[in-house]
């Protein structure tokens, strides 16, 4: 019994960590470079998920390789769609606004976008049932789990690793880190601010879009579904350090573990426990676990 419970908690934690890392990583890259805490970030996630719904409803003969392509395509399209509609506003205007205006504007964008999603896909709930049967199930400690869970964990981990490689080792990634750390000096050294803002914003939105697409088969899609992930992503961002991406997957893992334990033993406190952890973390280390003091 104890092994079963432990297995459930471990798998749920890994699953949630994988998704949360993608969403929070995107959020924190945008926050670090553009200094914008984008409350509409979850919309890129929602678009990725809803585009999976649309693409799987086209009547294509879905096979395992095709569904993987569909999921990635939907995620990329969702991220690009959201970024292309909002990038000009973010990069040309919002980066010069005070934080309170940024919060109000991005919150408004989120509400508007949620209504547009309702207008396009309706207010009803959807379940994307085509994915699980394609991959089958696997039995661990006497409990049957969809193989898709593990595909999601692996896919999200690969995308996260690629993002870190991009940020750590490519010239564009290094310029993104430089602008995030000290925008003024970077400009004086010849870095094109607009290009970096745009690149960082696109990367952030793509991560959220892919996160949404990979998550879509797990969820009941309905308006506002991304809000829970966005709130959890905010916790991860604050606990990691505002704009700091180093160590973010570790923070995502800690929060996911807390949530998984809460879901198993005190489901009523599923949201309260991670937020409590954030408050304690803020009190003890305001700059975040990995932020520079």
């Amino acid at each position, binding site marked *: 019994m104890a092994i079963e419970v432990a297995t459930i908690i471990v798998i749920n934690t890994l699953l949630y960590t994988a998704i949360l890392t993608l969403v929070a990583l995107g959020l924190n890259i945008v926050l670090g470079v553009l200094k914008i805490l984008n409350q509409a970030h979850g919309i890129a996630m929602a678009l990725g998920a809803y585009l999976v719904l649309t693409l799987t409803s086209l009547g294509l003969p879905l096979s395992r390789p095709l569904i993987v392509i569909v999921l990635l395509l939907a995620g990329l399209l969702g991220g690009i769609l959201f970024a292309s509609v909002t990038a000009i506003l973010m990069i040309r205007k919002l980066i010069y606004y005070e934080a309170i205006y940024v919060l109000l504007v991005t919150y408004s964008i989120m509400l508007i976008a949620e209504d547009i999603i309702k207008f396009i896909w309706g207010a009803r709930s959807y379940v994307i049932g085509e994915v699980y049967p394609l991959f089958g199930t696997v039995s661990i400690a006497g409990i049957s789990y969809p193989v898709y869970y593990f595909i999601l964990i692996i896919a999200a981990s690969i995308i996260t690793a690629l993002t870190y490689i991009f940020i750590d080792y490519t*010239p564009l990634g290094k310029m993104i880190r430089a602008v995030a750390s000290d925008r003024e000096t970077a400009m004086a*050294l*010849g870095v094109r601010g607009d290009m970096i803002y745009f690149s960082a914003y696109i990367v952030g939105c793509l991560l959220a879009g892919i996160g949404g697409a990979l998550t879509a088969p797990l969820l009941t899609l309905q308006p506002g579904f991304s809000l829970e992930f966005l709130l959890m992503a905010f916790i991860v961002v604050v606990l990691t350090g505002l704009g700091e991406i180093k160590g973010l997957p570790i923070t995502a893992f800690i929060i996911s573990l807390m949530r998984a334990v809460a879901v198993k033993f005190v489901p009523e406190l599923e949201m309260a426990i991670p937020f409590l952890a954030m408050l304690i973390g803020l009190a003890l280390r305001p700059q975040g676990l990995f932020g520079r003091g």
Partner: protein
Amino acid sequence: MAILKLIDVYVSLGPITILRGVNMSVVEGSITCITGPNGAGKTTLFKTIVGLYKLSRGSIIFDGEDITKRPPRYRVIKGIGFSPDYRGIYANLTVKDNLLLPLMALNISKEEWKKRLDEVLEIFPELSSLLNRGGIQTSGGQQKIIAVARALILKPKLLLLDEPFEGLAPALRHRLLNKLIEIRDKMKCTLLIAEPVITPIRDCCDHIYKMERGTITLEG
């Protein structure tokens, strides 16, 4: 011939006017110093020349071209290098990446990176052993040198050095001063240096401006 001319430059940051009608010129191949107390506007002047601050009045002529409305990147391409007073070393990048950042920014080919890096290391050989260290793992004095080396890597025509000697031990200060003279002579680079106290570098300056309350009050 003047490589840089500032004509009646006014700069306001919010409601406060920091620079009030600055007129000055920097002769090509010279070492020109701007001195003045903290708050005189030296850093604002440098940031204005680099393009970080907009002029509310006046113009900046660099190498015969009016660059008043040009963005910082254009000015870097034209040949203005900048080493800020706060050093601006990226703690989250290695020393090597700090040095290479301007080359990355201007899309200069990777084949050229090594050549440029070697040239800079020839001037500052002490940086060779620091290349793989994180920016955060370097001392204040080392960061000063890195900032100057980074500004030099693009072979600028004009190098702006904002308080390069501040906080340096006398021996290191003397060494850096000799390096700057070497840079001027070997690289044919014009130097514009801001220092609150002129005494340590007076002997190497071809021209000195004194700045007070946002304007030039003396020159010689």
